Every structure is written in structure tokens, then in C-alpha cells.
């Protein structure tokens, strides 16, 4: 188990050791979240590395990663714990008539029959220290669940009616992510440290690509990053994120491409753009024009 880093530089070193190149702002807010024990709320477009940083942090600190994937209609039963009704009913049937009520109650409502869900699992003591609790895509749930989460996150305890209150011995490291399809309530945001994850600059994206797809030659990596950066300035319905850049680089490597050309781009456009309108806009002469600009800008470098 690694200790909590004690400076922002230490956080940067820790993350880049795992291949995650973070901006200074993100490293600062991660450090503050670890030091002050506050949850971290990451908002941004899809594909900018929000989920990735939780995984990286868990690996780097040697903690268990517990992931709660949010969806509409998620309620406390699916998030905290649920009783194993089938097993309980079998127990009732097998113990038919032979036991008294209190003994039955104590036998039925024990940890044996409890199915732990992520929030409860995060409150249990883990070997290696407090786990990293990733609550992914919180904007997909609705306001009642947010209110429930607010209560759970402020005291790090959950209540199960039959078992009582279960408190976390050490508060877990909580990271919430959101794609902003809905405005998350201010009360929850204020409980956390907020950070908007933006698309990276050219230099940082190049570093990320070198860390994640090191087999690519430097010239190809530079062309890929420059092209995607230019695409982000175009008027697209969905701009490609960093995850798309890495996917595209891996596709090109699989096709043994050495340098970009308009044909290669139109063949592999599905790796960066996911909407048909955007693909149609880019195919053909548009891709050629962008590629020419990229080559012209990279030439003296």
C-alpha cells in the first residue's frame, strides 16, 4: 500500500508512473481531495479521462476500486445492499415449525443473506487501506438518489434497517463523474471539490499518446494529435475526446500505417467520430483539406 502523496508534484509523479498524464489543475484538485478527505467531482465531455483517473489512482495507491455505475431509476436497494430472498425463503421452509420467531429473525437477517452492493462494500474495511469508490455518470440518476448520496457521503455511513448503521472505519476516496447531460444539484457539488476536465493541449495530448501507445513512431503520433486537435475546432456534433485519439492510434498501428493519408483517414473515421452527420461532413475533401493544413503546420518542426 502506498501512502497518500504529500505534495502536488508527488501526485503528478504518481499518476504519470501509471501512464496517466494529468494537467496541473487536475493534479492540484486530486491532491486536495486526498489531503482534505473531500469527494472529487469531475465533469466534462465524454472521453476526457474522468473514469480513467479513478482506475489509475486505485492502481497507483494499491487500493481496491469499487465502481457504482449510475442509471436512471437507481435506488438505495441497488446501490447499498439487498437481501437474498431466495436463500431466505429456502431457510424459512427448511426451518418450518421447529424454531421460534426471534431465532428465525436473527438467523435470516445476517451477513450470510446480504448481497453487498458498491456503497456498502466501500464502507467495509479493506486490506490495503480505504478503497477508491467511483460513482460513474451521476448525471444519469435522478434527484432522489442524489439526495440519498448526499447523506451517505457526508458521514460515510449507510443504514440497513435490519442490521443497523454501518460506518466506514476509514473514509473511502470518492470520485464522482458526470457528462453533464443534466445539471447535478448544487448541494452535491458543494459537498465535493469540483473540476471541469477539458480537452488537453497539443503537448499534453502528445505525452498521453506516447504513454498509452508507445509503439507509434513520433511522426505519426504528432500527425494524429494535430489532426484531432484541428477536428475539435470544427463544427461537429460530438467532438472527439482523448480516448478516441488513443483508439485511433491503436487502429492505425494495427493497420501498419506509417503516415496519414486521406484514404486511411476516411477508412478509419469511425474510430474518432461516432455520429453519421459528422462522418459525412468529414469524408472526402474536408479530410484532405485538414490533413494538408496539419502537414503544413508540422513541417518545420
Amino acid at each position: 500500500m502506498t501512502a497518500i502523496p504529500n505534495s502536488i508534484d508527488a501526485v503528478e509523479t504518481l499518476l504519470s508512473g501509471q501512464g496517466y498524464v494529468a494537467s496541473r489543475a487536475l493534479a492540484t484538485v486530486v491532491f486536495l481531495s486526498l489531503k482534505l478527505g473531500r469527494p472529487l467531482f469531475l465533469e466534462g465531455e465524454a472521453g476526457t479521462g474522468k473514469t480513467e483517473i479513478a482506475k489509475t489512482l486505485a492502481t497507483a495507491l494499491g487500493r481496491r476500486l469499487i465502481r457504482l455505475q449510475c442509471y436512471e431509476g437507481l435506488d438505495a436497494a441497488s446501490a447499498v445492499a439487498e437481501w437474498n430472498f431466495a436463500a431466505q425463503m429456502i431457510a424459512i421452509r427448511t426451518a418450518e415449525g421447529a424454531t421460534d420467531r426471534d431465532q428465525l429473525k436473527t438467523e435470516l437477517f445476517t451477513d450470510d443473506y446480504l448481497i453487498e452492493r458498491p456503497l456498502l462494500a466501500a464502507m467495509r474495511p479493506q486490506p490495503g487501506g480505504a478503497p477508491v469508490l467511483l460513482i460513474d455518470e451521476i448525471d444519469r440518476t435522478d434527484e432522489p438518489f442524489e439526495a440519498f448520496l448526499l447523506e451517505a457521503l457526508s458521514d460515510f455511513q449507510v443504514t440497513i434497517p435490519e442490521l443497523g448503521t454501518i460506518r466506514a472505519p476509514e473514509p473511502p476516496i470518492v470520485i464522482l463523474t458526470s457528462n453533464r447531460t443534466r445539471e447535478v444539484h448544487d448541494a452535491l457539488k458543494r459537498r465535493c471539490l469540483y473540476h471541469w476536465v477539458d480537452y488537453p493541449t497539443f503537448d499534453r495530448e502528445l505525452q498521453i499518446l506516447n504513454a498509452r501507445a508507445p509503439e507509434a513512431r513520433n511522426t505519426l503520433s504528432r500527425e494524429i494529435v494535430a489532426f484531432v486537435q484541428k477536428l475539435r475546432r470544427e463544427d461537429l456534433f460530438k467532438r472527439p475526446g482523448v480516448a478516441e485519439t488513443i483508439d485511433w492510434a491503436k487502429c492505425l498501428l494495427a493497420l501498419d500505417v506509417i503516415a496519414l493519408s486521406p484514404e486511411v483517414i476516411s477508412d478509419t473515421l469511425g474510430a474518432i467520430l461516432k455520429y453519421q452527420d459528422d462522418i459525412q461532413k468529414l469524408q472526402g475533401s474536408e479530410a484532405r483539406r485538414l490533413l494538408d493544413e496539419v502537414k503544413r503546420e508540422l513541417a518545420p518542426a
Partner: protein
Amino acid sequence: MKPLASTMATHAPLDIPEDGKLAHNIVHFARALRKAGLPIGPGRTLDAVNAVAAAGFDRREDFYFTLQAIFVSRPEERSVFAQVFRLFWRDPRYLDHMMSLMLPQVHGVQEDRRAEAAEKRAAEALVDGQLPPVPQEDTPGDRIEIDATATMSAEERLKTLDFEQMSGEEVAAARRMLARLSLPVQPLTTRRTAPSALTARIDARRTLRAALRQGGEITRLIHKAPVTRWPNLVVLCDISGSMADYSRMVLHFVHAVANRKGQGWARVHAFTFGTRLTNITRHLRDRDVDAALRAAGAEAQDWSGGTRIGQSLHVFNRDWSRRVLGQGAVVLLITDGLDRDDSALLARETERLHLSCRRLIWLNPLLRWTSFAPRAQGIRAILPHVDSFRAGHSIASLEALGRAISEPSDHGERDRLLAMLRA
């Protein structure tokens, strides 16, 4: 609070006064941000001081990012934060001076606020009643008579009268009627469940807990049913010159719908467009309709200008659709369809809008002409992509909208006009 002067002295000097009052300056900075519009309470100011103490000053930008992590909670606030930071930490006295020019009380406890429109009216009414005896002569013609005995036929006539042809007092009477209209909505079923007596889905958890009372014997089954919730409404209102009279009346209607208490839409978002798209949702929350529309009018700068529907829908689709249409919203598009832009763009953007929302309803005042035929390019571009096409030129037509909006199979005049288009 441990003194922070020692930490400061060992690192590169920042543009802040080195007199050991960093915590005091952070508090002052938080108040400056609050005046700039960011919602920051004293709890966060305390967090900021703790965070700065924890983070230290390895690099100049760490201070900036530390404060940003605490004080900013929306992406829009970042630019405001950056400007106030630059102004404040260059020289706090400079910002003080600027703030004192704008507001008379900077250090005072009581915040100054502008008098609300309703308060002004109320204040005037109060003062008028208590003024010392100044002869107030009622000049002839100034007398306002409120005739509460409007006959049924007069009201019905007002309902069918076209907005464009109303006179001043008819407009005022119509506004009062619009304030009483509503837009009933069908609830949506969600994936959550709640106990219910009637349905077939069994709630195993509650059944078993109830069985405990009988020693494990299941004597009764408890059922659950899906919970319903209300959908969102998004209104896109054209405020260009050709729609001038209609848009003002329709916005009164939208304000009434947005402020209706009790069962109704979950959230009502409203946008106006002419040459650019403006979000006026915040202004509609004001209960007083005059204040709300005045604030909206001040924000949207393109009243009675030209029309660029395609471009505005494009901006909406790109910037707002994912944020407001996410959970099954109904979109009300209020425009006459007369557009200056390229109709291919308009068709594409309307199709994209249609694909992103649950139902797209088009209200067009031009349908007041019974012999209306879709000839204009803009109208031909929009028509195939809407779910329902209705008239929006009078109170009666808005009432008809109210009746029809809860019918999912209602298409208004769309099919008839589509047939004309293809013929």
C-alpha cells in the same frame, strides 16, 4: 489557524501583500467573487483557507488552481473566476476601489439590491395612499375602470381574436386570460417503483418482511408499481420581426405554464431566437410576469430583427440539446418558418432536433389563414420533421394546444399539409 507568513516567505514572491494576512485576503477575495455572482458561502471560504494551508506554494499557479478547486463549481464560472483573480491579487486595493465605485457599501453587512418591479409598484401604491394632502386631480381620460362584468360573448370573441389585431386594452385583457391557461401533461413511467395495491409485480422484499410477523409464513403478497414522473418542456420561441405580436403573447402563455403550481411539467426551459439563441429560463422563474418578460427582453438583444432559424437550431443542438432534452422532453417550436437561411441547413437541424427529443410540436401563427399552403422554403424544410403542427395565433388555438398536447397520437394539421407538399 497557523500563521501562513512563514510559508510565504520561503517561496517565490507572489503579487500579494506580505504582511501575514493571507487568510484575511482570501476572505476578502471570496466576497469579491460573491459580488461577481458566484454563490460562495462562508463554509467554502473556510475550506479555501484550509486548502491553501495544505497545498502550500510550490508554484505560482498552484495557488490559482487551489482556489479554483474550491470556489468554482460550474464551467461557466471559470472565466469570471480568472478575471476576478487577476484583478484582486494584482492589488486588492485596486479592486476595492473599483467595487466602491459601483456599490456604495462594500464592507457593510447589508447587501444592496435593486428594487424588484413588483416592489416598486407596491411601494408606489403604499406611498400614494399616505402622501400628505397634495391635490391629485383626476384628469379626464385617466380614469381606469375595471369592468368585471365582461359578458360571455365578449370573452369568447376575445378568445378567437388574432393577437395581431388586438387593440391595447384587448391585449391587456388577453394577458389576464392567458395567465389562467395551462398546458396539461401526461406523466411518464420511470424505472423506480413504489408500493401499490393494484398491479401484478410482487415486491419480494416487503413481502418477506411482512412474513416475519407470521413466523415466516407468507400470508399476503405486497405489490409494487412503477413511479410516474412529469416530463420536461423546452420552448423555442421565434422573436424576429415577422413574429413580433405573437411572440410577446406566447411568452405570456409560457410564463403562465412555467409558474403553474401543482401537477405540471417537471422543468420548463425557454429559449428565444431571431438572429441568435438566448436562454431565458432563469427570467421566467420570476412570479411577476412583467418583470420576467422585461428581464428576458433585456437579455435577448435580437427582438424584431431578422430570422435565422437554421443557425439558431444548430446552436441549440450543439450547446443545449444534450443538457435540457436528456430525460424525455417535449419541444415546442414557435415560429412562422419564414427563414433567410439556407433550407438544407434548416432541414438537417430540425431532423437532429426531432431525433433528440420525445415529441416536437410546431406552433405557427400563419395557420390562421384557412387557405394556408406550405410554399415557403423554410416551411417545407421543417414540416416533415415535426410530430404535430398546430396554429398559434389566438387564445383559442392555445387552448386547443392544451387539449391536444396530452394525446400522443395528435398530429394537428401536419398530415394534411404534408399531403399538399407532396401533391
